[in-house]
Structure formats: C-alpha cells, structure tokens
C-alpha cells in the first residue's frame, strides 16, 4: 500500500539490489548541491551533526536488515522510505531516508556518477570524505550487497525501530497514536529515539529542502513499526520509569489484578500520551511473570537450584552461613557499584573536558584565521603560538590538519588536567575522588575565563599554551 510510484524499479540484478538502485535514484533526485566538505567540517563536533551522522549510519541498517531477513516485506519498507523521500514536508522523515540511502548504496551512487552531495557532508568528517570521494571516482559495481558481513544477522526488529517513527504516511499498519505527537509528554517518562539525542535536527543547509525543525520530542514514541514487517509487532523501545510503573500498577489494580487486566483497559486508564498498546502489553507480561515467579525471571533462572536454601530452614547454623555469604556477596556488589559510579563520572568528566577544550581551540582557530583574512597576509602574529602556525598554510588545504593540531593542543591541555587528577587520585585513594574534582573544575574554568571569544584570543593562546606546556616540563 505504500508503494509510491515515484521511482523506477530497476529490474536488473537480484531483487534487493534493484531496490537499492531504485532508492538510490530517488535520493539523488533530491536537490542537494555538492557542498564542499571543508565548509562543513567546522560543524563536525556539533552534537546535532553527530546525531545526523548517526542517522546516516543507523538507517542503512534498516533496509539492510530487512533485506537479509525478510525479503518479502522489503518492498514495503523501501517503498515507504522512498515514497517519503519525495515528500520533503515530512521533516522528521527526510533526514532518515536520505541517510538511509547512503552507506549501503554508495555503490549505486557511484554508478550514477554523482558527486555524492548527500547531506552527510554536513557531518561526514574526514572518513566520510574519503569514502565519498573514492566512490565518486569508481564506477564499477560493488558487490556490497552480497558481502556476507557478519553483523547483518542482527535482529531486524531493532533496525526497523530505527525507521521513520513519526511516519503517518505509513498508515494503516501502524497503531495510530491517539494523541497529537506535538504535545510534550508531561509525565516523567522518557520516550527516546535511538540514537537521537534530544536536540533539534536543524541541518544548516538551506539548499536542502528539509524542514528539520522537529524536536525529537515529537518523534518520540518509538512506535511499533508496521506490523506487516514481521507479522508480529516488534517491541518498541520505550523507557519506563518508576512513576510510570506506579500508574501502571494502579491501573491494573483498578481493573482487578494482573490476571484480569487487559492491555487496552490499562492503556485507557493510564491516560498517558504516546504510550501504545504494545508498550503496555509487553509490560503487563513482564509484570505477570514477576508476580507469579518472584525473582525467578531473567538472570536468576530456575536452573540455579539452591540446595542450601532448603537446608537453611532445617539447620540454623547453615542459615547463619547463608546470611554471611549473602553479606559477603552484598559487600562485593556494593563495592563494584561504587567503583562503577566513580568510573562513570570520571569518563563523563574526561569527555566533557575534551569536548570543551576542542571547542575552545576551534574558536581560537576561527578567530585567528579571521584575523588573518582581515589583516594583510603577514607571516604571523608575533604573539601567535605554534598552534596558529598551521592556519598560515594555504587556506584551501584540508581543514583536517589545523583541526587536528588544535585537537592535539587541546589534548595536551587535557593531559595536564588528567595528570593533575591522577596524582591527586594516587595520593588520596579512591575515596578522595570527589575532592579532586574541584581541582579539575578550576582548570577548564581558568582556561574558560581567559577565552572570552570577543577580542582576547591572543591571550587565550598564551594561556592555553602555557597551561599545556607547563606540566610537561
């Protein structure tokens, strides 16, 4: 039903390939001019770009997965995808499908000889640039489709989940959400979209007729994909919270208990927007299992028969030993939990600093290069540090290199703080970890203050360089 006759189906080659070709053709019909990669590069670290990139990368899986596992229904998915490609009004859809054309269909794109103007250029970065440029040169058909890449056996379900979710055109096979998707769910529930972060997809390319003003909140419920895909609705990935579960339990109790409650009834009673019957159904199933076999679901399977447990009710001494063993187990678990928390926080901090310094150095680079462009082409500002030497090289050179140098300098600065952290960590042991954090905070803060973007980039250079160099002395 979703067959949109907006593209010719090339009958050559295996079935799936022809579909690939078809969709490839469709995507190329979109008016995307070849945007030089260098322009796009500065946007690379932007989280939105990253999300688009992830779009690029995840969506290819959808058609691929379906190709591998479910040939019969591929047409459906594909047609819906490509059908939507022609309708650029579906803002939430366009980045999806357009990106879904990229990776696996690069062969077809190369066949058509396009210069790959795909919007991924906005977020492609160096690796992609290499890919694209190479592919535009090569004209032979890549046996991409027939490559038995092992991970193509990944379950279809997860990938169909990645398909356009807010896709009203897919019509009848979808459970229509009763509520307007535009309303933000007031409940403390997270309905997330993998792998989109909760930021806007605003692709800064006016030439691409995409209205990407849709916040991911609208896209939210990862509603079940068309049930015709598998015959059975795939489990939508919604993130439950305790509060939501409370409401669920209340609703179930009102309906007379977990056995008597029906998913439909519960759904109605809960009155939570963007909650589908599939969510409720699966949750109800889990709930029933948990009630009637307490803690013998997931993980603790019945195989783990515990003879000691039976003995404990007979022998008090063994009971004490059991208790002790449990205490020991608990201790170890608590310790692991502690360590994991600490580790996670460290990881977050490290990346935060990295990102922060990277951004800073980019700003520095930008202001410096602007300054260079504005002023006469003197060999260099006497105050300019080594990291600025690179932008003096021909402006047309790949943006990569200066970026990398900036990154390296950024890394050096991070190294400084990491070393600082490490030494304080060593001296204090893990318990001191929380106290070392303020020290870390000072570092970026100090660098931050000196980096007020307006005019003081010269000072930034000096400060950052000095902070980068001093610990390595």
């Amino acid at each position, binding site marked *: 039903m979703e067959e949109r006759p907006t593209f010719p189906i090339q009958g050559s080659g295996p079935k799936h390939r022809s579909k690939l070709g078809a969709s490839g053709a469709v995507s190329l019909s979109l008016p995307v001019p070849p945007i030089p990669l260098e322009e796009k590069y500065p946007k690379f670290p932007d989280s939105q770009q990253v999300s688009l990139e992830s779009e690029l990368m995840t969506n290819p899986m959808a058609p691929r997965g379906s190709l591998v596992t479910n040939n019969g229904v591929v047409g459906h998915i594909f047609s819906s995808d490509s059908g939507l490609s022609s309708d650029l009004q579906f803002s939430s859809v366009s980045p999806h499908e357009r990106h879904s054309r990229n990776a696996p269909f690069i062969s077809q794109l190369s066949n058509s000889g396009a210069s790959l103007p795909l919007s991924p250029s906005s977020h492609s970065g160096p690796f992609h640039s290499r890919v694209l440029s190479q592919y535009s040169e090569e004209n032979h058909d890549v046996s991409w489709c027939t490559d038995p890449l092992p991970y193509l056996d990944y379950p279809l379900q997860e990938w169909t989940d990645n398909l356009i979710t807010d896709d009203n055109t897919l019509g009848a096979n979808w459970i229509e959400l009763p509520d307007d998707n535009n309303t933000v769910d007031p409940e403390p529930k997270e309905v997330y979209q993998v792998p989109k*972060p909760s930021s806007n997809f605003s692709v800064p390319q006016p030439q691409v007729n995409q209205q990407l003003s849709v916040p991911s909140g609208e896209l939210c419920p990862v509603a079940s994909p068309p049930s015709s895909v598998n015959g059975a609705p795939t489990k939508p990935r919604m993130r439950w919270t305790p509060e939501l579960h409370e409401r669920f339990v209340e609703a179930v109790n009102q309906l007379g208990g977990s056995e008597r409650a029906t998913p439909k009834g519960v759904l109605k009673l809960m009155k939570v927007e963007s909650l589908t019957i599939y969510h409720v159904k699966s949750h109800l199933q889990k709930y029933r299992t948990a*009630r009637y076999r307490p803690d013998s679901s997931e993980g603790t*399977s019945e195989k783990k028969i515990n003879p000691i447990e039976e003995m404990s009710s007979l022998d008090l001494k063994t009971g004490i030993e059991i208790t002790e063993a449990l205490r020991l187990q608990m201790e170890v678990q608590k310790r692991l939990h502690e*360590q994991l928390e600490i580790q996670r926080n460290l990881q977050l901090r490290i990346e935060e600093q990295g990102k922060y310094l990277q951004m800073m150095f980019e700003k520095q680079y930008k202001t410096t290069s602007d300054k260079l462009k504005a002023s006469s082409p003197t060999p260099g500002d006497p105050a300019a540090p080594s990291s600025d030497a690179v932008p003096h090289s021909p402006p047309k050179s790949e943006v990569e290199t200066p970026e990398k140098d900036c990154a390296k300098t950024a890394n050096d600065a991070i190294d400084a703080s990491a070393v600082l952290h490490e030494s304080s*960590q060593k001296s204090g042991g893990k318990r001191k970890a929380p106290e070392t954090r303020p020290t870390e905070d000072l570092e970026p803060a100090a660098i931050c203050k000196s980096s007020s973007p307006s005019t003081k980039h010269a000072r930034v250079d000096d400060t950052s360089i000095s902070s980068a160099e001093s610990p390595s002395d």
Partner: protein
Amino acid sequence: MKFGKRLKHQIQETLPEWQDKFLAYKDLKKLVRLTSSAPSSSEGLMENRKAEVGFIYLLNAEIDKFNSFFIEQEEDFIIRHKELQQRIQKVIATWGPNGTQSSEVDYREEMGKIRKDIVNFHGEMVLLENYSNINYTGLAKILKKYDKRTGGLLRLPFIQKVLRQPFFTTDLVSKLVKECENTINDVFPAAEEAERIGEREAAFVPEQSIFRNTVAALVTIQELRRGSSTYSEFSLPPLNLADSDLIQSLQVHSPISIL
C-alpha cells in the same frame, strides 16, 4: 589486545543470557584493520571503504543492541523492585511481630527468601551497570584505535553521542541500587560477624553466577585501570581499590559448587 581478552573473560563469566549482548570488540578491530590496510589496488581501496562504512555501521548496530537490552533490563528491574518492596511489606504485615498472623518461624523463613532475592536483585542491577560501563569502555577504546589508525576524528563527537545514549545513562538503575541497599539495611539486621568475612571462603554463596560475575567485574575494572602503555589524556587514572587482595582471593576460590 588486553582489553579484548578482559572483555572475553567478562563475557564468559557473565550471566548466560547476556553473553551475546556485549560489544563485538574483535569484529570492530578487524574492521579498523581493514580500513587502514594499505590498499594495493583499486579493489584494495574498495575494501578499505567498505570496511570503513561497515565499521560505522557496526558501531551503531552495537549501540542499538546495548540500548535495547539495557532498557529491557531496566524495565524488569523497575517491576521487580516494586514487587520486592510489596513482598516485604506483606511479609512484615502478615508474619511480622505486629502482623496478622505473627509467626517467628514463618517470618524468618520468608525473610530469608526475600533476603536472598533482594541481594541477587541488587547484584543483577550492579552487573547491568557494569555491562554498560564495559561496553562504553570498549567503544571508547575502539574509537581511539580507529582515529589512530585512520587519522580520522571520529572519536570525539561519536563518544559524545554515546554518552547520551540510554545504555550509558544509568541513573535510574543507580537509584534503584541505592534504594535496594537502603531496604536491606533497614529490614535486615546488621551483621555481627563482619570480622569473619576475610576468613570465610565463598563456599556457600547462593547465587554463584552473580557472585562470580561481580568479582570478575571488579577484577577487570582494577586491571583495566592498572595503567596502560598508551596512556593519554582520555585514559582513566589507576584504580585504588581497598581490599583488592580479598577480591583476588574470592576470584580464585569462588567456583566451588557446580552450576
């Protein structure tokens, strides 16, 4: 290769249902190698490109896998947590000292069961946190390798994306873990025999696999952070774990009963 081995070890020790849910580190490494292999011909170049795309592709597939699994487990935990709370209330209300059918024996028995269940529940949640963390670590490492070998700058933005993924935002699980600990402290009397812990071998640990997995996880963390040859600004500092000897001894002696 160190991480690869450790990861493999973790996977071996983990709960059976989890074994295929971990990061496909080896596959990713292969792809990185293929991506950066010297192309001898146009076919070789094509291989590189394919591997590159495949790499990104697999990365995202893995992330999706983590997310699905994690969210599913999280949902289960939410349900079980509530159920445990209710169970405890019920037992206290029925067989407790002030209960309707106050019975010391029954109370003790039921509480014993609950205690075991709640400790295992706690353990599973912590293991899920570990799962999240070790996969994150693997991703960070493989991205670093990728950048190093291909000269790309994929790592930074990609890892930013990863940080926001559901499987890494473990706050809810963490909260449940803490609530669990509080419940245990409240409901179960503090143990008097703390000093015996060091001597007692883990001979009678009820839930072997959870316990073993937990110990393995701790050891892995410790070793991973022992210090690396490629220490960089993005590396974690070495771990300073008290009672690390105890943990080591537990690891050696724990597999006593037969699974």
